[in-house]
């Protein structure tokens, strides 16, 4: 009798234990705490909504400070945040990370930022900065400035006639004897594609193109080039001003050095992270893309 009773009680205990465990496993309520930590304004299935986020959201929606907001406004914003949390949790249940492209984009961006956050906000030491500066001297100079008059005899067929070359040489002679560029343009029927005054080197390079820019750099201030034949025309350059870049001192370049160093650190960090992820992953590629190396 006693043995039977023991078995029955033991069975009832086992069933009750399984029921409690089941509730705990399959219902969020089973593991819920009933108090909200002081830094939170609510817990949704144990996921906190921070008071700080609540205040920011409230102020951003109402345009008032937290203390100026009414109770109704506070409750409305709280309802919105709880609603958002519920929908986010449901999105996770439905595995939107796998199926929804915008969620994937957001996750990918957030992950990149997370990886880079350390380099983004780290504060390099003076020694690191100085070392980077010393290793990359060409990066740290004042901006070169070029002022150039650029006159052109346009060509249609890609080759200049003898008459056009004579005209170009006469124009060069006129410029060298200080005839104003405007007068030379008018007298010889030249064109001047643009006259931007002082330009940074990079802008002058874009406007002139590489060959003409390099030719201009070789000219001294106030001098005029020989006629330069190109496919689109005969070009003449008169360099008014050429302020060459001057190396910066470390003190003056410090902020730029820091930006460049962090950029370099971020590139290295992202490469290392992807290398690590690839190393622990099994990536199979279809045979028709066998030349891809993950």
């Amino acid at each position: 009798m006693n043995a039977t009773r023991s078995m029955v009680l033991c069975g009832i205990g086992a069933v009750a234990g399984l029921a409690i465990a089941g509730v705990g496993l399959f219902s969020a309520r089973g593991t819920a705490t009933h108090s909200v930590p002081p830094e939170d304004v609510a817990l949704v299935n144990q996921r906190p909504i921070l008071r700080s986020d609540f205040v920011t959201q409230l102020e951003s929606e109402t345009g008032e400070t937290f203390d100026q907001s009414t109770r109704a406004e506070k409750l409305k914003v709280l309802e919105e945040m709880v609603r958002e949390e519920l929908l986010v949790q449901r999105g996770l249940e439905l595995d939107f990370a796998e199926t929804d492209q915008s969620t994937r984009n957001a996750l990918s961006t957030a992950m990149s930022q997370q990886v880079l956050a350390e380099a983004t906000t780290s504060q390099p030491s003076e020694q690191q900065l100085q070392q980077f500066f010393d290793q990359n001297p060409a990066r740290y100079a004042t901006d070169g400035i070029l002022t150039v008059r650029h006159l052109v005899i346009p060509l249609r067929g890609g080759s200049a006639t003898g008459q056009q070359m004579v005209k170009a040489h006469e124009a060069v002679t006129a410029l060298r004897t200080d005839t104003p560029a405007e007068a030379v343009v008018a007298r010889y029927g030249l064109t001047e594609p643009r006259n931007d005054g002082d330009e940074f080197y990079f802008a002058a390079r874009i406007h002139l193109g590489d060959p003409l820019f390099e030719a201009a750099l070789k000219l001294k201030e106030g001098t005029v080039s020989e006629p330069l034949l190109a496919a689109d025309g005969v070009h003449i350059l008169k360099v008014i001003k050429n302020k060459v870049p001057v190396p910066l001192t470390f003190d003056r370049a410090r902020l730029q050095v820091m930006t460049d160093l962090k950029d370099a650190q971020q590139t290295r960090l992202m490469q290392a992270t992807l290398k690590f992820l690839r190393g622990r992953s099994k990536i199979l590629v279809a045979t028709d893309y066998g030349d891809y190396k993950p």
Partner: protein
Amino acid sequence: MASADSIPGNADLMSFAMPRGASAYSKHCASCHGAQLQGDPVRAIPNLADADWLYGSGRVSEIERVVLYGIRSGNSKGWDLAHMPAFATPHPYDLYAMAPLTPGDIEDVTSYLLAFRHPQADETAVERGGRIFHDANQGVCSDCHGFDAKGDSAIGAPDLTDGVWLRGDGSRQSIEDSIAHGLAGRCPAWITVLSPVTIRALAVYVHSASTRASARTLSAGGKRE
């Protein structure tokens, strides 16, 4: 539960928060912002003790938000709405297309800014600079800094008229450098590192230092720089 902004008016909460805030500041913030919260204009690190705020107006809740989520920290809740373009580069801004400025343009805009506090010899340069400052197709400066150049604390665009300079000493050279090479300072997000209590204490400590600095300036009868 006391709101963050009510703490400075509560002596008990202040006596709890200040030592914790000072300790956390010393450990986590002083390496950039300086032991006296004075910042570093060489590195464009803002002074936290001068009551001049890039973001918000210096309320404890606003400072707390910066400490929690940072500035350009990579945290999606951090401040990251805009940064200063580098106008002496082919592509000054990475968020949308913007034309570079010429050396002369940069000089003119600098003259325009300097003229807010000191008359400039070349008034035509000031006029040209003003036009570029307000031009929606060229400098676009007023888009962030405001039509009156007094800045916009909602996006961290500084007031350019008050003589407080985030980077450099307000000299022509340093202003031209900022326009030419841009600025995009960063502050870490501490939400995953520090506890909520420590973060709030830190915000209270910084707010307190700023408030003391303002009071000193006002009692000296001077206008805050």
